[in-house]
């Protein structure tokens, strides 16, 4: 076999296809991939797996990324079973099973650690501050709006001038959350709900707020990267890899909870391919 031929890499879109297959009960018994999957794909896989476990379905079928270091780290963190503050690190990957919002000092330490990792990896201080703020807001959203007893998950990876993070929760998702606010009671689909949720000032709470997504999206506004918001039956991909930022929606099978993933790089300029 020609060693220069690349083995397939599991991507987020592949995970979506697997998930689609699963809903039709025709997922293969197991699929092993030798190459590591992306951080977002591994977190999505863990979220799907956790969801089906709550439904009492076997997770055996999902063991299709055994050699993925992110996935292995998530497994080691024992999410979602562990409800204690739990952080696992493998190389440049950090996976945190998030405790409740009451563990403030612990959480602040984690954020400070992330910010210093970003500056150590040549992110300018202003950008490191903004990206750390974006992560903090996504976790705050999970605490505020997921309405779940299960802990949320944060995974991130910082490399030289590159950063990726994912926040996943097993809660009620954006649609059900926003519908709690009578102002958005008319919403019918996850796509509509995501469209509103990413706008400033839109919140499920009557006492205002709704700045979390704006902070997160602003943090990466000027750099190469993309963000993906996956909840219910929809996914929004905000593509900031081209000169003009675009939003694309994909319809998908139902997935409870919310998964926000971001990746960005200072290495690549917009409008150039990777």
């Amino acid at each position, binding site marked *: 076999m020609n060693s220069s031929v690349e083995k397939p890499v599991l991507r987020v879109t592949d995970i979506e296809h697997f998930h689609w297959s699963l809903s039709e009960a025709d997922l293969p018994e197991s699929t092993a991939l030798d190459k590591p999957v992306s951080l977002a794909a591994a977190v999505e896989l863990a979220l799907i797996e956790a969801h089906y476990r709550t439904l009492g379905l076997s997770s055996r079928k999902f063991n299709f990324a055994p050699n993925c270091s992110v996935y292995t780290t998530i497994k080691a963190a024992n999410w979602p079973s562990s409800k204690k503050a739990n952080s696992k690190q493998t190389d440049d990957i950090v996976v945190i099973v998030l405790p409740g919002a009451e563990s403030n000092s612990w959480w602040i330490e984690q954020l400070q650690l992330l910010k210093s990792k970003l500056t150590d990896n040549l992110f300018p201080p202003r950008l490191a501050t903004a990206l750390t*703020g974006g992560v*903090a807001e996504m976790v705050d959203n999970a605490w*505020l709006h997921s309405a779940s007893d299960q802990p949320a998950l944060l995974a991130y990876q910082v490399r030289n001038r590159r950063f990726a993070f994912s926040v996943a929760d097993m809660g009620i998702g954006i649609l059900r959350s926003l519908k709690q606010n009578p102002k958005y009671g008319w919403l019918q689909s996850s796509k509509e709900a995501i469209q509103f949720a990413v706008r400033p000032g839109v919140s499920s709470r009557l006492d205002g707020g709704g*700045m*979390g997504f704006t*902070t997160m999206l602003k943090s990466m506004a000027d750099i190469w990267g993309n963000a993906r918001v996956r909840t219910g039956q929809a996914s929004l991909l905000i593509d900031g890899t081209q000169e003009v930022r675009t939003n694309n929606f994909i319809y998908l099978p139902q997935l409870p909870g919310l998964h926000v993933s971001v990746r960005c790089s200072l290495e690549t300029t917009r409008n150039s391919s990777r």
Partner: protein
Amino acid sequence: MKTEVRINVRKITDSNTLVGKIGGNRDFPKFMTAATEAPEGSTVVFDWSGIELATASYFGATILPLLKMSNVGQLDRYFMLVGINPDFLDELKLVIEFHSLAVLVGDIGRGDSVCNVRVIGKLESPYSETLDAITKATRASASILHKHSKKNQIGKTGWANRLAYLSQLRLVKKRRVGRELVFQPIYGGDQNGC
């Protein structure tokens, strides 16, 4: 009577990282207590030096309600924010502009003095000009501004309306002197130290 009270945000929150609505809701009573302990009609200067990260949601849960209460007359205090790290100043702007408010911010210069005082928020140029005029004059009424204005097309009523709007936004202090309303800046400290 003390007209300006400086509050160290790091000291009252005991943190240098202030994020999220949850964190803001938790800390709001600390901001509220600090504000209400200041004399009525005084300017509360929140000093953010030493804070390394603050997000829009945090500002939205702490500073925003204070400004709203002040604007509708529920809290007779004026507010100013100083020493905000430029790395997250945009987060404050986001919240203030979204809610169509305005607030004074300043930098911290030599000897801990406040300098480079400016407005954050949407303030149209006529109001900015009026605020500048009041700041330069230290105190003035609509008739004084009308008398000294080079723009003679602005009548006394025009100046009065502008001042009333700035007063409603709590960007100037108002008091009655005889039959006249006199306006003055909410902050009279050293502004030359940067």
